[in-house]
């Protein structure tokens, strides 16, 4: 039985992860810590667990692993504290707003001999797994181009504050797809061009949309839209889509399009009732298993770093208005 704690409910994904922990028989949600005690207490109550206000005390109790779901800029300090306390760690994406932070987190976990995972649940999405299997089988031949989107509704709050998020939609909604493409093709990103800006949610100090063009090893061409462009009245939170153009055919994935259209007169807004598999459950199960088996989670800190390197290059490109190379940090060895 893996004993897991959650550090911060600043990110809404924490609520889904906590629900997954309660659903998995092999895991126990032992405690919650949050630098916002009101939020932490409410979450602990919601998930039937204990809130611990003091971080030092939280890290001294009998917990094997922690899930860090704070604001992006706080990931590093929380991960480092948890690593030094010998906890296994699953960190929300993006791993960090900067390459420097991501590298330091990986090094710290390596030194402390604890596992570090990045929360990329798309790797557990059945439609995306099916698409990857088709590519890996060789049935579709060489992949030439992929056009992707990761659109979302405006998350507001700290997500749109540079001091807490470190970046906007270009960061928030590029990392998933960057990881999916690395996982599907086994290739690394080499070049990025990006146009972005605050186009829709005026007055925020981060970008809310990025249009990216990337190249992967072997000349694979990638287009991506990372956005918070979905209207408040849109029937769902957003999407992850890929159109994969390969030698022997085309694969289209709309990963969260397993839904029923619902028209409820009380809501006065069409809604999509999702019936597909829950990728978060696969992500959390792998983390729990990794904690139990004392192994690195399936999606590692280095995977998180690779996605960070792409977003950092995207912001650099948007600023310089030219294509920039993605600088790959030498990967740390697996523990």
């Amino acid at each position, binding site marked *: 039985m893996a004993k897991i704690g959650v550090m911060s409910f600043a990110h809404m994904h924490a609520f889904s992860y906590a629900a997954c922990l309660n659903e998995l028989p092999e895991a126990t949600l032992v405690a919650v810590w949050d630098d916002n005690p009101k939020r932490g207490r409410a979450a602990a109550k919601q998930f039937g667990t204990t809130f611990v206000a003091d971080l030092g005390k939280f890290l001294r109790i009998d917990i094997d692993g922690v899930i860090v779901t704070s604001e992006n800029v706080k990931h590093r300090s929380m991960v480092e504290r948890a690593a030094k306390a010998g906890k296994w760690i699953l960190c929300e994406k993006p791993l960090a707003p900067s390459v420097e932070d991501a590298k330091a987190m990986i090094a710290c976990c390596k030194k402390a001999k604890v596992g570090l995972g990045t929360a990329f649940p798309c790797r557990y999405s059945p439609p995306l797994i099916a698409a990857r299997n088709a590519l890996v089988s060789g049935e579709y031949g060489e992949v*030439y*181009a992929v*056009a992707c989107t990761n659109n979302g509704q405006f998350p507001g709050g700290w997500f749109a504050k540079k001091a807490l998020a470190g970046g906007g939609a270009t960061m928030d909604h590029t990392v998933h797809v960057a990881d999916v493409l690395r996982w599907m093709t086994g290739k690394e990103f080499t*070049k990025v*061009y990006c*146009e*972005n*800006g605050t*186009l*829709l*949610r*005026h007055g925020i100090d981060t970008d*809310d*949309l990025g*249009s990216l*063009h990337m*190249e992967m090893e072997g000349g694979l*061409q990638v*287009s991506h*839209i990372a*956005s918070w*462009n*979905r*209207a408040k*009245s*849109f029937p769902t939170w957003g999407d992850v889509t890929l*159109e994969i*153009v390969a*030698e022997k*055919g*085309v694969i289209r994935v709309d990963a969260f399009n397993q839904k029923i259209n619902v028209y409820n007169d009380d809501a006065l807004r069409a809604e999509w009732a999702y019936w597909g598999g829950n990728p978060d459950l696969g992500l959390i199960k792998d983390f729990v298993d990794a904690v139990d088996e004392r192994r690195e989670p399936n999606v590692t800190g280095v995977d998180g770093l690779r996605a960070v390197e792409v977003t950092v290059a995207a912001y650099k490109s948007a600023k310089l*208005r*030219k*294509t920039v190379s993605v600088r790959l940090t030498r990967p740390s060895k697996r523990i």
Partner: protein
Amino acid sequence: MNVAIIGCNGMGRIHARMASNCGLRIVACGDARLATAKALADEYVADSSDDCMAVIARPDVDIVGIMTPTPTHAQYVIAAAQAGKHIFCEKPFARTVPECREAIAAAKKAKVKLFVAHVIRYFQEFEAIRAQIAAGKVGKPGFVKMYRGGIFPAGADGWFRDFAKSGGVTLDSMIHDFDWLRYTFGEPERVFCQALRRATPEFIDYSMATVRMKSGIIAKVIGTWAHPSDFRVEVEVCGDNGMLQYSSAEAVLSMTKRAQSGVVPGMIVPESPMPVSPYQLEWQDFLTWVEGRSGARVTPDDALQAVRMATAALKSADIGQPVNL
């Protein structure tokens, strides 16, 4: 008025029918392949010839419809202008911007009407999108996504396969979207593009572009000639107070014939059933201009600017950097 059609393959056939529907008489059909010219000419009891220049020069011709491969457009526009004919030219206007300029100068000098068929400006669904934007339904637009394409078109003698001539999907197909972006959202600032243009092991093209408009709007334009089947058009416009989406995949009418062995569709021309087709509307608009009753929705400069955007996109794809417009 009498019309000559030169280039009698797919688009030539459509435009002959539209001109005829408008009450014009098709008197001559020209095509480098005589059999193609004759097949169309016979439908309208017209003359046929493999000498397009001779067809253009006929004294009984008032309007020349140019539906030949793109790199030949400019020479025929210039010849038609010098012969004093009004001109209805299929898009893209020409292969290069300087060719567009020469063609415009020739038409201006000859005082003839020169119209380039950017038919998307007449598509009812695209006009409905413009109306919704104008009515403020999305608020201030900030993002546009346009998607267009399907199979690799066969074309006469496979001329689309010669990327240097056709410009691939970027010039031939995405020019519709480039023009519509300019028509709807104003002037573009710069473009970045990735275009596959593959000839082996099969001919496929897939092009992904970002256009930054002077207003700051970001537009993503994707064109495909990479799909094994079908044709799809999608538009999405996001603003600060809403968004809209259109997809041709949600078709009002879908008719699919079982494939016959060995028969490949030459070209898929998208159209939704309407009382008046967009191709008809553009002929009507052209004719009101020819008759001096009003200007046309597409000016020769609009058509040049669309070529400018598409050729800049191709340049970007070649150099891997954005190109300023």
